[in-house]
Structure formats: C-alpha cells, structure tokens
C-alpha cells in the first residue's frame, strides 16, 4: 500500500553508491510476500562497503523490528529482533550487569548487521568475532519461508548466514550469549611506541585477557615510522552499576559537511598531535564511553570532505608482519598518501568461508578518496596476495573480485552453498555483485 521510495544510497565514506529503493516495514506480514526483483536487508546502513544496497535493488530496513524477545539472566542469554541497535541493547543490559561481548565502536549499528558482517570488537583475539556469540537465529527467505537455525537445526545455513552479508535472507531474530559486565570503569593505559613494528611486537606478546587491545599510529610524520600508542584496557570489577550511555549523536552517512577535506598530511599531523595529547596518560572511562568511542564525535568522518574516504583492513599472518609494514611504508611514500587513521589489532578465530578471522595481526588504514588512494589500494591488493594476507570484504568499498578470489579459499564454497540454498539469488547488493557472488 506504500510504495518503496527511490533513493541514492551511499556507504559510510562514499566509497560505493547506488540508486535503489528503500522500504521500512514494521509488520511481519511483509515477509510473507514474494518480492519483485532483487532485494537486500539493511540494518543501520553504516557499513564501509555497499552491503545493504545495490543498483535497482530494494533495501529493506529492519530498524522497526527492534524488540527484546527473551532474556535469561540465569544463563546469560538474550534473544532480540535483528533491528535492535547495540546502543539500545546496552541500555537494557548494562544496568542488569550484562554485556554483548563483541561490539564495534558505534551504538547505532544493528544486531542483524553485526551477524551478517560477523564484525569484530576491541579485542578480537580474546573475544573472537560476533558470530562466536550467536547460538541461534531465525531467518526468513522469500522462497524458503521462516527457518530456525542453530547448532542442531540447519547448522550449515547458520554458518553461511554469519558473515554472509545478508545474502541468505532476512535475519529476524538472534539469540546471543552475553558476558557479565564488571561494575567498575574501563581503565585504559596507553603504551608509547616508536614504530609500527614495536607495536606489533607488543600486541603479539600480550595474549593475556585484556578487555581492550589495539594500537593507534601516526603516519604523517617524516619517515612514516608510525609512532603511536598501544591501548591496553581493563574492566575493573567494582561494586557499582555500570553507567548507561550518554546521548548518541546520529551519524549521517549521506552528509558531506566540508566542501574541502582537511585530511591532508598537515591536517592529519595536527589531528594526530591532538589525539596523542588526549592520551598522554592512563584514562578511566565508564563502560559506555569505552564501548562506543565514536558515539560522541561523528564529525570525525566529515573531515575527509566531499570525496569521503576508503578503508583497507588486512589480516597479516604473524610471520610476515615486519615485511608487510616495511612494504606499506614504501607504498605510502610512492603514492604520497597519508592515512588519517591507522589501527592494529591482534586477531584470532577460524578463517572460514568469507569471514575476516584467523590468527594474525590486523592493520587498517583509512585514507581520503581519490586517484592516489585507489592506486595505493590496488598495490595493497597485490601485496596482500603476495604475503598471504586477507582484506576485510565488509570494510573495503572497492575490493575487486579478483582480490577476493585470490585471498579467500572459501569463496567457491560460499558461492556454491549460497546457490544451493537460493538458486534464484534473490538477495543482491553492490558488494555481492562487485565481488562476483
């Protein structure tokens, strides 16, 4: 009765855009209908690649399905509808002493999106990725109806849906295992490092159970040594109820605030100095601020200007981290590109299908979009293949099919299992078409 609206979609950073249709249903009878043409589920629509839209594709927003269906404080599990945001879930769980183990840094992200992207949090080595905490989910597919998936029911389809980019259908509800939330603040100690290599050594050595473990680097300084900070954060257990999050300011991925970006080498150097000054000593934050660092300052993303930015995150096997870093440094110089953000995290988990998991060190860089950036990323693709690294498909808006095919041995398995489940391939997105699914 209400027609879908035509809309030009962008991913966060403007790396990928498409003209499609948008629909925001709020009743379950929507999923009874057979859709006309390709569609794709959309959570918050905040991913860095075109995972929730496509040219001529109907994007079906799940945000109105955001209810808590079951909560078991004895077992530490919760069942929620897929459209519930991490922020809303945090608001409910924190006062009751529980926490979702794996959370990306922005509170408007939906649980369904976290499952479809199998996202990681602030310590993927200790906590793995989101899928590890999913025990069951309900899926609706236009041709297959409603399906309950768990370790006992269609485990193959559950595996395909976790990190399946929404291509197996609508995720309706998700059951999650939770972590007990200590009552006290998160105390983060920044450790100063002189180079990326030094940080990699520290991250490799620290395999104890810190709650937060990642590093941040400044690549704007001459020589690009990557001086920076390694953050080791711990949740203190004090008898105090954790605070609920402060006001989250909306991140609008369609907004291009600054006509000209300030993320050139000089601008980045200034920002990096400010960041380093902010972290000159240990910091104590409440659980909300530590969980959602981006909630307070979405403006950061606007600094890149009209052209936006693109990100490349690579999972480097431990043996070749030194080689990778040296080659990256040379490539940055050759293309005269300065990353606005460079972050490293130690990773764990099992590299199955198209999941960004496995033992190694992840290194992510964010750069202003442009010809130089694209040339740099193309060279990084080749470097990834040469050194046996894998790029995060969900974060790189231009990652070509060839790179995915060369880096992911699970691509063929993913494709054939998806085709076996849905021969008509009803779910499609810019991302799925780009990587040849």
């Amino acid at each position, binding site marked *: *009765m*209400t027609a879908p*609206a035509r809309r030009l979609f962008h991913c966060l950073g403007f790396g990928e855009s498409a003209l499609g249709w948008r629909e925001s249903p709020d*009743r379950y009878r929507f999923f009874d209908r057979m859709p006309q043409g390709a569609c794709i589920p959309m959570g918050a629509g905040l991913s860095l690649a075109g995972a929730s839209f496509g040219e001529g594709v109907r994007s079906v927003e799940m945000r109105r399905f955001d*209810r808590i269906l079951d909560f078991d404080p004895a077992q530490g599990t919760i069942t929620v*509808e897929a459209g519930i945001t991490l922020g809303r879930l945090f608001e409910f769980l924190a006062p009751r002493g529980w926490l979702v183990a794996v959370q990306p840094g922005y509170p408007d992200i939906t649980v369904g999106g976290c499952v479809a992207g199998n996202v990681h949090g602030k310590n993927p080595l200790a906590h793995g990725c989101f899928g590890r905490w999913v025990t069951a989910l309900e899926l609706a597919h236009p041709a297959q109806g409603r399906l309950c998936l768990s370790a006992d029911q269609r485990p193959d389809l559950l595996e395909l849906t976790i990190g399946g980019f929404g291509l197996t259908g609508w995720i309706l509800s998700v059951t999650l295992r939770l972590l007990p939330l200590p009552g006290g603040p998160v105390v983060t100690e920044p450790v100063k490092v002189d180079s990326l290599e030094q940080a990699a050594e520290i991250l490799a050595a620290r395999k104890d159970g810190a709650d937060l473990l990642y590093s941040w680097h400044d690549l704007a300084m001459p020589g690009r040594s990557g001086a920076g900070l390694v953050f080791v954060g711990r949740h203190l257990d004090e008898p105090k109820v954790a605070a609920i999050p402060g006001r989250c300011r909306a991140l609008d991925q369609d907004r291009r605030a600054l006509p000209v970006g300030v993320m050139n080498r000089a601008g980045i150097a200034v920002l990096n100095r400010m960041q380093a000054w902010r972290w000159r000593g240990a910091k104590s934050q409440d659980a909300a601020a530590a969980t959602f660092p981006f909630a307070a300052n979405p403006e950061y993303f606007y600094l890149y200007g009209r052209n936006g930015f693109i990100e490349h995150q690579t999972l480097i096997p431990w043996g070749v981290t030194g080689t990778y870093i040296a080659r990256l440094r040379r490539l940055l110089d050759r293309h005269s590109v300065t990353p606005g953000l460079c972050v490293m995290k130690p990773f764990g988990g099992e590299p199955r299908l198209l999941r960004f998991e496995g033992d190694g060190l992840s290194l992510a860089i964010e750069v202003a979009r442009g010809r130089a950036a694209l040339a740099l990323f193309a060279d990084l693709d080749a470097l990834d293949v040469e050194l046996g690294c894998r790029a995060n498909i969900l974060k790189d808006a231009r990652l070509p099919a060839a790179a995915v095919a060369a880096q992911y041995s699970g691509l063929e398995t993913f494709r054939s299992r998806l085709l076996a489940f849905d021969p008509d391939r009803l779910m499609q997105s810019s991302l799925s078409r780009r990587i040849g699914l």
Partner: protein
Amino acid sequence: MKAVVIGASAGLGRALAGCLAEAGHEVMLVARDGRDLDPVARDLSIRFDTRVQWLEADLAAPDVAELRTGVLERMGGLDALFVIAGLGDDADTGIMEDTALRRLIDVNFSGPASIINAFLPDLMRDGPSHLVGVGSVAAVRGRSRNMVYGSAKRGLEFYFEALRHRLDGGGCRVQFYRAGFMDTTMLGNERPGPLVVRPEAVARAMVARLDGPSGMAYLPRRWLLVALILKLLPWPLFRRMRR
C-alpha cells in the same frame, strides 16, 4: 491503571503502549496480527516488568462482543481505552479500488466507532476513566491527497466530540489528538522531513496529558499554527496547494 490500546503493533500505538508500560500500567495490546503483537508484549514485559497481554482483532471487521469479553476476562475490567489505529493508502488521491476505499473507512472510522460503542458501558461508571482517540492533521482541510483517510478521521473526530458531550459531567475524560507527521509507515518510505517527529515523543505527550483537559488538541503543539494557517487560507490560494 488497566489500559487497552487499539492498533498497538506498530507506530504510535506501539510507542504509546511502551509509555504506558513504562509508567507501570497494565496493558492489553489489540491489532490485526498476533505475530506483531507478541514481540511487543514480550519486549514491554521484559523491559518494564509489568503485565502486557495481547488480543487479535481486525479493525476492518471487528467482532466487538468477542473482543470485549476477551478484555474483561483477561484484565477484569478497564480504566482507559486508546483508539490509535490508522491506515493510509498511497492510492487515496481520487480514484481507487472500492475494496481499498472501504477498508480506509472501516479501519479509520467504522471499526473504531464499533469498538468504542462496545466498551462505553465499561467506561461510563463512577470512578475516573479515559477515552483517547487519534486523528490527523490531514483532516484539517479536504485536500487532493488522503481524501478518504482525512474524511474518515474527520468523522472519528466528530464522533469524539459527540462522546465528550454525552459523557460530560461523569468520570470519563474524552481526549482527541490531531497528530502531526510521525516517523512511521504512514509516512511511506520517504526520508523523514523537518516536521516529522518520533512517535515516542507524541506518545509521551499523550500520557503526560492523561489528566489534562478533555477536548481536541494538536500534537506536537506547533501543528496548531500550521493548521490555523491552513484553515484561514482563502480558496484561491488553497487550490494551488496541489501536487
């Protein structure tokens, strides 16, 4: 308080049920599809630790006797009836299918009138009670969009005025709201414009005004000004407001 919310599966009705549950009231959710009501009931009971139940009823042809029996059996009475349900149709611009047109009239006028009529004996009693209805700013002046919807809502508003007249002096407060644009499916799938508010904001205002005056009011309040301008606009200008 024991409250019945008609049209509680989504939009303003769902938000209102949330505000009532948060305030500790016992709530009965009523709408067409139990698949939508069950998650709302679970969510509200889990979050606010209060009793929330649901009953299915289609406003296009409600079995009002059965609905009333169900409500009285499960809740043992009611103190407030909220008639929130509404239905819009993109095709409501002049020539539409007869079944769709009738459904608009049924869901927006006939169904609500039947339900109110059935529950009236329960609301007309000694203690205080509440009857709250929701109309639309689309019913301020007849326009070439939402033609039947606006007419039906205008009819409902007229019925509420009559009810207020009838119940005056008793314990039942009769309140009616002309609600402005909200971020619900009634708006279609377009991006919410600057005048659009979250249904939660309107729901909160409705609950806060429960013990306020009877009669009609605009929510959000700024629509009073918009409606006034619209009402005073002379025909030669008003006729140009057509898309």
